């Protein structure tokens, strides 16, 4: 049940216990217990809302920053990553294989705010060798959801 439960709530965290129990063919109490266990184990890390900010009046800029760093001898990349993810404006930090080391995703109020973060906070860290910033121009699909498309069903209304 675990994986199936997760895959349902991954795209709909607001679904009720009752409905989950029906869909999975188990008792409500089992779903509640499993969810509690998943939260306790840190498998479920949060219940967020997917927002298309472009449709609001709020200005937001998202940037992907490729960062090359010098790993520290004891803690390797973890220490640098932590320095970076402690900034609240940082959305995600991933360790990446290939031409650079850390992928930092940042949300700022404006282009200038992002630029300031990179030059004043990121680039000044000792371990950071270089940072290459990419601005996101348009989000087509996020977290598995296509943002700009209503559901269309072109099937015939009635078929045998």
């Amino acid at each position, binding site marked *: 049940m675990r994986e199936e439960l997760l895959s349902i709530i991954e795209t709909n965290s607001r679904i009720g216990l009752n409905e989950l129990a029906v869909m999975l063919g188990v008792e409500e109490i089992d779903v509640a217990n499993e969810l509690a266990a998943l939260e306790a184990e840190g498998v479920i890390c949060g219940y967020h809302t997917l927002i298309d900010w472009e449709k609001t009046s709020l200005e937001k800029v998202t940037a992907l920053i490729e960062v090359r760093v010098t790993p520290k001898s004891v803690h390797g990349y973890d220490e640098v990553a932590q320095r970076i993810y402690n900034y609240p404006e940082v959305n995600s930090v991933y360790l990446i294989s290939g031409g650079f080391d850390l992928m930092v995703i940042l949300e700022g109020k404006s282009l200038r705010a992002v630029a300031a973060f990179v030059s004043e906070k990121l680039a000044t860290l000792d371990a950071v060798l270089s940072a290459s910033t990419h601005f996101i121009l348009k989000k087509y699909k996020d977290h598995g959801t296509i943002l700009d498309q209503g559901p269309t069903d072109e*099937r015939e209304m009635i*078929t045998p």
Partner: protein
Amino acid sequence: MRNPLSDVCVAIKPSGIRKFFDIASEMKDVISLGVGEPDFDTPQHIRDAGIYSLEKGRTFYTSNSGLKELRTEIGNYLNRKFGLEYDGEDEILVTVGGSEAIDIAIRAMVNPGDEVIIPQPCFVSYEPCALMAGAKPVVIELKAEDEFRLTAKQLREAITDRTKLLVLPFPNNPTGAIMERADLEAIAEVIREKDIYVLSDEIYSELTYKGKHVTIASLPGMRDRTILINGFSKAYAMTGWRLGYACGPRTILVQMRKLHQFAIMCAPTTSQYAAVEALRNGDEDVEQMCTSYNQRRRFLVNAFREMGLECFEPYGAFYIFPCIKEFNMTSEEFATRFLEEEKVALVPGSAFGDCGEGYLRVSYASSMENLKISMARLKHFITRLRAQ
């Protein structure tokens, strides 16, 4: 001018679904749970295989039987799923959907006056195909108390000296019924004893929610009495590609290939390349879709129970078949009023045979959101009916 028409053809009743379709298609903002095909798109890698085949200029005919590669993959699939052995050379025929396979199998096997046993409610094309082949359709009315499974007793009673072929359509459209191993063993015993043949339409075999699908062809002595029909439409969400297949003993398949050769030539080449990819790398897609259907199935079973609508739990295909006899109207009246008053399209059970009267076919090949809205509207509707 002389009458241009064939008497046999004219005598065939048009599909009951057609009439209801005409009403539904003129209305706006209707949610349809009347669709007999998956709501998923064909998985992208399978579509890509079709696209690449076009880009590479593979726009020729294939051999009559279908691409050798595809027949090999079909053979492998049936072997790994059911332990069946078919020779890709002349025991597997790639057809234009399962529908063509049904037509040519019946035509290849019956003589005028032979009886073809058809358990109803069922898919709409068996009876017309039997009639066009000059056979006499003999209907067995499946019963709700048997969960719409075919029983050996019913079969035995329907068999006469003229019986040639039994159509065995499970998992079933429109009831969602399945036949488990023990059910099939009882049927197989009668088949062997009475020396008749089986056309087993297993197009929904991948969509089974209670144990694994069992094919009658895998039972002792049944392989050489069975034409096994399957295809890509339901399992891989490939309805529009029009691709199915038939497998069976060489003696019958060779005759079917002849009909196929003269009427069709070969199944669409692009679809055949896509199907090779589906069989090689599509298991995970099928599993995902199946999981999703199963969740919706459970949701509907529960919704009908809560409404107090009589309904057996179906374990196959993507249909559920609730009973509406308590409302004292025909299923067509019910479906028409429900459509007009609540804007949800369901198919009257009577479209699948007279014994489907008093039932509705509800397809759960539709999003959870649509299912939820539809069930809320149905509850609303029947509450009103019960209050009258």
